[in-house]
């Protein structure tokens, strides 16, 4: 038996047969459902999660208990709980592994969260590419249903909760919670104006909580062991653990669950084994491709919300993309910008037009036709998107452009002056990796 890969969500993640309910229950799984439903009040559950300081793991880092607290107690409308399993932020692949290997922990988290907000229906919105994961989750739902953990009168508590998976069909924007709800209602996945926030008017204009997969998987642990126990990991304002998905030319890419606040360098050097031979680290995007990068000089930044914000970037979804010194950053930024242009839903002008123009200017640089004014032009277009688009997709497209230029302006200038990349060693180094 190898050492646990993490203290909480990854503790037993590689246990054989964990997707089967009997195995999950042997490890104490679903005990919390029995201990909570009908025995603790929904408000108590919300208070415990508030006290734990758990923050949303999908990207925004909003306090989970507070989000639950926004759901009106007295309403004639039905309430809904939605799990955001769209996992669409480039660089992020944690929810896929979590669901593939431990679907019952997500289901248990959803039963408990639904009880806390008194929702009787829940949906798991999976990205369309996760069809195989969806079948794993569906089997787990059927098992939980057969065991009396879903459906009517769960474990005799009088609480009922129906849970269904819902498969998207390829659209980054559906990771944005209001676009996700539009998609779930059968519309094109375009975002809606906030307020009203989903907690008040969400799915079918009813009170709805949307939580990320990883967030919900923390809930059974928190309700079982209490806030103080949960706070043994992490920092005062970023309690608990977070799963970071590391990709790029490191020796051991993959998902790592670490206490929040761990220095980025420790994650990359100790856990990922450092860079592959022949590669030097040039930049790291710490929280999915939408957040500004950090240069190699800032690797001592802690992996918690406050430290990352102080360094001018974000924990985001925890998608850590490592970029090596052989990579042309104009090329890398063009790749990121092309993604957001492709995924812009077309609803609002700043995002629809701005992502297009940023890609055009970067293509010009890449072709060696860049002009001296183009760097400021890129910044200007990004600034005209940032905070001015309908939803966060615009910010997601603008932040990397501004961040790459801020930290690596000389490389962009070199591209314009010399009409070619500062470096093109990447292709030679890759030849060896791929051999």
């Amino acid at each position: 038996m190898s050492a646990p890969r993490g203290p909480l969500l990854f503790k037993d993640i590689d246990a054989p047969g964990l997707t089967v309910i009997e195995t999950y229950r042997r490890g104490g799984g679903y005990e919390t459902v029995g201990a909570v439903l009908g025995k603790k009040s929904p408000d108590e559950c919300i208070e415990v999660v508030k006290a734990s300081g758990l923050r949303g793991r999908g990207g925004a880092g909003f306090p989970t208990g507070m989000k639950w607290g926004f759901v009106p107690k007295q309403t004639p409308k039905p309430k809904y709980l939605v799990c955001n399993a769209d996992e669409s932020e480039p660089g992020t692949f944690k929810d896929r592994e979590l669901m593939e290997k431990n679907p019952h922990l997500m289901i248990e988290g959803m039963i408990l969260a639904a009880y806390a907000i008194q929702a009787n229906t829940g949906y798991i919105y999976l990205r369309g590419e996760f069809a195989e994961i969806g079948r794993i989750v569906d089997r787990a739902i059927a098992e939980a249903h057969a065991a009396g953990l879903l459906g009517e009168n769960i474990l005799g508590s009088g609480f009922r909760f129906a849970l269904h998976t819902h498969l998207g069909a390829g659209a980054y924007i559906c990771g944005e919670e209001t676009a996700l709800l539009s998609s779930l209602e059968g519309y094109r996945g375009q975002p809606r104006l906030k307020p009203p926030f989903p907690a008040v008017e969400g799915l079918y204009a009813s009170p709805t909580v949307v939580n990320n997969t990883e967030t919900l998987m923390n809930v059974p642990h928190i309700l079982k062991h209490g806030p103080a126990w949960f706070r043994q990991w992490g920092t005062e304002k970023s309690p608990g653990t977070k799963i970071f998905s590391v990709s790029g030319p490191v020796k051991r890419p993959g998902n790592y669950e670490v206490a929040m606040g761990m220095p980025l360098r420790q994650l990359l050097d100790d856990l990922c084994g450092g860079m592959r031979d022949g590669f030097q680290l040039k930049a790291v995007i710490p929280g999915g491709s939408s957040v500004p990068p950090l240069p190699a000089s800032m690797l001592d930044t802690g992996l918690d919300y406050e430290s990352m914000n102080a360094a001018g970037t974000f924990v985001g979804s925890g998608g850590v993309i490592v970029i090596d010194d052989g990579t042309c950053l104009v090329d890398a930024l063009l790749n990121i910008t092309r993604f957001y242009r492709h995924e812009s839903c077309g609803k609002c002008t700043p995002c629809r037009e701005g992502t297009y123009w940023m890609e055009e200017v970067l293509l010009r640089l890449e072709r060696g036709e860049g002009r001296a004014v183009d760097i400021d032009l890129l910044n200007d277009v990004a600034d005209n998107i940032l905070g001015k688009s309908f939803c966060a997709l615009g910010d997601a497209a603008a932040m990397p452009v501004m961040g790459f230029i801020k930290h690596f302006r000389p490389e962009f200038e070199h591209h314009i002056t010399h009409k070619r990349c500062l470096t093109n060693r990447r292709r030679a180094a890759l030849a060896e990796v791929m051999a």
Partner: protein
Amino acid sequence: MSETLLAVEPAVEWPEAARAEIAETLTHYPNLRSAVLPVMWIAQREWGWLSPAVLRLVARTVELPEPEVFGVATFYTMFNLKPVARHHLQVCMTLSCSLMGADRLFRHLESKLGIGHGESTPDGRFTLRRVECLAACGGAPCLQVNETYHENLNEARVDRLLETLE
């Protein structure tokens, strides 16, 4: 809208098994409209792609105007609006995969199969597409074949993989 969507074809009907699956799916939602994506998935599995006649059938099934259904189908990238081959090769081109050689892998597939993005081999065996992030960045570069992910690929491994796909 593409020419394919405007073509006139004879109407199609659901096979019995699909009918039962749709009936079960409809019980998940408080209204018919929410079932439009699941019903399209069932249709795509049944016919391989969403022809105009199939989209009209979807519209009748969920009781929506045809333009609404066509609008939804064209918004999402995974609905095939023209026929695809038996093996749909979807190469992730987003940053992490690109850093680890996706561009090179895609060019290799293009030259080996003699087709470009969105094209199919004449024998109906392979369709090749560039796609955006598949959430498999730790196993970059990643190729999705129909519903299955294949990670940590290089030219030699992808060649061996193709041989297994008849």
